[in-house]
């Protein structure tokens, strides 16, 4: 028993470190100038994009279980937190390196730039999720509250996609792919929601009458 717990936590730790290695690695490549002419924009975008990708993977885990029976639920917390760490790194690059710690630029960005506003609120909604992604919080909170908090992730993904769309000059292939996956995830979520199920049974009942 003890051995299997140890094994489990070991392979989760391995997953954590593997998924997080690109953060320091890209930063190192940036310092030694291996990321092309614009290393700052490179790591800023890379961290943000990987954060979005890991968020989308986290959100795909329950539809994957439901429709394909592939069970990755035990990795969900890990991947979700990894996404959060990428997003924190993304914001750190923006604040410390891109705008050079300028509170003036930050405040004017937060007032005028829609993509910054969307990104900022996406980050804010993710904070309570990150803080409650541990056994202690799960024990302390009742399941209903915990589930409610963790449904914020759908708000975060919508805001993140808007953040990406609003900062892009045109619709690139990546943008189509991420937006498409988000829409699919949202449709599946709506379909499995209580309100939708109630409404559909109700309408079926009306039709059969």
């Amino acid at each position, binding site marked *: 028993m003890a051995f299997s717990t140890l094994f489990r936590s070991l392979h989760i730790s391995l997953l954590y470190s593997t998924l997080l290695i690109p953060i320091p690695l890209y930063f190192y490549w940036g310092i030694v100038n291996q990321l092309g002419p614009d290393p700052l924009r490179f790591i800023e975008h890379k961290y943000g994009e990987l954060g979005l990708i890991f968020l989308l993977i986290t959100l795909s885990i329950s539809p994957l279980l439901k429709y394909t029976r592939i069970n990755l639920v035990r990795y969900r917390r890990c991947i979700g937190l990894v996404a959060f760490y990428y997003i924190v790194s993304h914001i750190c690059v923006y604040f410390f390196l891109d705008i050079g710690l300028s509170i003036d*630029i930050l405040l004017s960005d937060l007032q005028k730039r829609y993509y910054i506003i969307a990104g900022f609120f996406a980050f804010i909604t993710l904070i309570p999720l990150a803080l409650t992604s541990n056994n202690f919080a799960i024990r302390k909170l009742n399941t209903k509250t915990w589930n409610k908090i963790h449904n914020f992730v759908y708000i975060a993904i919508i805001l993140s996609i808007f953040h990406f769309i609003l900062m892009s000059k045109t619709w690139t292939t990546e943008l189509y792919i991420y937006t498409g996956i988000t829409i699919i995830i949202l449709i599946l979520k709506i379909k499995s929601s209580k309100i939708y199920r109630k409404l559909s049974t109700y309408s079926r009942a009306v039709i059969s009458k």
Partner: protein
Amino acid sequence: MKILKYSDITSHNLYLNRRKFIGSLGCTSLAFVPTPVAATQSYSTTAKPNTIEEITNYNNFYEFGTSKTDPAKYAHSLTTNPWEIAFEGISQNKKKFDIVEILKGKAIQERIYRLRCVEGWSMVIPWIGFPLRDLINELEVDNNTKFVAFETVYRPEEMRGQKRSTLDWPYREGLTIEEALHPLTFIATGLYGEELPNQNGAPFRLVVPWKYGFKSIKSITKISFKKEQPYTTWSSENPREYGFYSNVNPNVDHPRWSQATERVIGEGLFGERRKTELFNGYIEQVGDLYKGMDLKKYY
């Protein structure tokens, strides 16, 4: 067929000698044409140019893909020789010229210009070429011409980005005739004393240093002289965000981001932002073109 190299048109030696010659005169060859700028003033900036690696590996050239590294990867597929440029709005019978004919007899010179991209970054680039006015002055341009329109080549089989409708191809840009005749407005056919690499708009591109980079259209195959303001790609794609003029202006923000500062390419991860200058620092030379114009309205 023999591949025409830039060095066939102007040998490297000749190019260097010309520079020496120009230098010994203490002025640019433009001193032969009257300009409002003092003859001793150089059109080049004294800022240190970016490296050739930076200039050729960080490009916006959507004809080859939307990523900055796509042009370096895929632009080699474009055939730049032979290259013809078609003209409209001229009274000569001959409306098509081979690039070799156009370059014949032109005083080729170097211009080290700042480039400010609308996305908020900048570079310094040592172009080789000639002022656009030298070409326009050779043509019998229609009277009452008010604008000049430019068009990039449309060859989806050679330019993979054109297979997708990222933009309304072919890419088109335009200037007022006054802007086109300004001595700073340049046609680049080379870079760093060598033939222009494909990803930088070979074989024939516009360089308008006081405007955002997207105005400086690449791989031009058509030039038209017009009475009306022509269609321009980005300003049609999103008129609220990109204007016809698109002069570099730190006081007029892009609706989605600030234009007050710029990231200097080549400064690395910890480089400081540079304050963007009005008309990209060329206010002395081009300020008169926009005297009395409301730059917030005509952005």
